[in-house]
């Protein structure tokens, strides 16, 4: 299992469309993906669940921890962190 923290950078935070992109990206991998907020580790959500991700209420500036567990965990973590870093490729 691998885990990495990353900070939400885009203005809108993890809104519906951003969460949808995250779910799509996570769905491309076999491994299990979970996400928590650094400041609220008690709430663990499934990284492949859009509603779960919305429930994190990860606004801009919130640091989240992405964990992946499975054969392709390394690729998954890398891809997901890049997506968050890129602001979920929000349109301008």
């Amino acid at each position: 299992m691998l885990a990495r923290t990353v900070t939400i950078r885009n203005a809108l935070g993890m809104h519906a469309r951003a969460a949808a992109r995250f779910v799509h990206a996570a769905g491309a991998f076999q491994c299990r993906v979970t996400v928590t907020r650094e400041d609220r580790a008690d709430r663990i959500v499934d990284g492949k669940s859009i509603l779960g991700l919305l429930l994190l209420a990860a606004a801009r500036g919130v640091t989240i921890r992405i964990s992946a567990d499975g054969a392709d965990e390394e690729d998954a973590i890398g891809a997901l962190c890049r997506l968050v870093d890129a602001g979920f490729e929000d349109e301008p």
Partner: protein
Amino acid sequence: MIRVCGLPVSPGVAWGPAALMLQRHPAMRYGIGAALVGREIGRLDQAREASAAQLRAIRARVSQRAGADLASLFEAQVLMLDDELLVPRARHIVETDRVNADWALDRAFDEFCAVFAEVGDEYLRERRGDVADVVGRLRRNLLPATAGAVRGLADLAAPAVLVADELSPSVAAQLDPAMILGLAFETGSRTHHSAILARSLGIPAVAGASAVTRHISPGILVLVDGDAGEVVIDPAPEAIDQARARRARRAAGAGAAAARVAGPAATADGVAVRFLANIERLEEVDGARAAGAEGIGLFRSEFLLGGRALEALDEEAQYRTYRDLAERMAPHPVTIRTFDIDESQASGGAAGDQDEAGRARGEGPSRGPLGLRAIRLSLRHRAAFETQLRALARAGRHGAVRVLLPLVSSVDELREAKDALRSAAGEVEAAGWKLAPMPVGIMIEVPSAALTVDLLAADADFFSIGTNDLIQYCLAVDRSDGRVAALFDPLHPAILRVVRHVIRLARPRGRPVALCGEMAADPGALLLLLGLGVTEFSMSPAAIPEARELVRQVSMGDARRAAVRALNMPTSRDIAALLAARFPALATWPAGRDGRPHMEGQS
């Protein structure tokens, strides 16, 4: 005949038999025996399938019509359907708790809402609306085919006016303009996604028509006036005749406009009057030109946000829009108003209905007309404001771009905004661009600004009277509150006096005064404003041909004499009677109904 007032969110007038859609109905809830569990799960799965298919179709359609950005919202909704917290969770509830599918779905949604409510962040909490839209669709798809309101739309035998308690964007996106003549709904605002979709479909619409569904019986005739923001139930034959005449004139006006707009408009006695357009999207430029607009008097830049947060809009995208606007309108001026939004819109909400409800209940800090909005908000979000100003400064190289600041209430505010502009322009020049000076004007909406036009004139290059807000602030009427909305009176003597005051202070200082509220789209009010000395009007493109035609038929002398009389009349009824007596043509003028002005919701 019953009239219900609302907000005009999509122009035009339409009438027809009513089709009623209630989306806020409570689901039937009942326990089931073990034998029915399979059947209920089957219903749930069918509703899921139907919803997914509908959402994919909507996504494809919206993508063509309104762009990929709005379409991706529906992609997220497809994902929500299959989320373990929604349909799979409801399935589990059916199995373990033995309740019908409708109830299970509501329970699953309630559970989600309960967790969401704990979440502190205001903006994300508002996103619950996206999930509610999906749940609403599932609920409708659970209903038997004959009762499904939305599928009922597909069954309409003849075109109808759709009257709804609320209209979610996903339903609005499915409307067929050939079958839906007009729209009236109880919630919503001009910047609501459904209102934007109605405009893009060209369907006349009125939002915020309080309790309108209560008056609808099956098949009753309903008239939707998307110019005035009015719904008339069971209209008198004369009302229909007037609407028909207005529509014919507008259609003819659009065609004949090209021929008539060759020269500038002038009154019968030769006083030049300029008509500019109020628009909110680049695509409206062609229509504005065709209608004879001599420039853009008001570009509502906040529509560029399209529901996104202020910070999400970058400089390049804004620059391209402002530049294209200036180039396509050249040589005419393009007046771009900086973001006129409130706090919820700044964080990406689409002018929430919840906000309006909350305000009506008097909850929390003022999010309404007296709160943090327009220039006040821009000055607080300085980075986003300077981004917009840099984009404007760069666009200024491509045409006659003018900057218009909304809701300025003091000289200090104006100076602070101009400092921001100087700093933004400095940055642009440092990057190697050579800039031309750009006129900066202010909206006259707040009484304090109206009373100090002489002081503001030292720093402002022009003024633009925004009648909707000016009336609201002068008369202390919140139009979104139905109980006092009738007090919103454009012909109130105070309004005429304020307009005269502004012109008297601005004119000797060489500062032009335009008027950009839809008040001027009412023929009687237009003549009075003309008589008070306003000779530049900005209005929705559709209203320009009629207004030009009217101005041609009257003399400035007559208008001035009527205005002088009106200024000393005690009530707006007296003023309306005076107008009717002095200008008999108004009685048959299609846009003038009952001598009452019709207004647009936001200017």
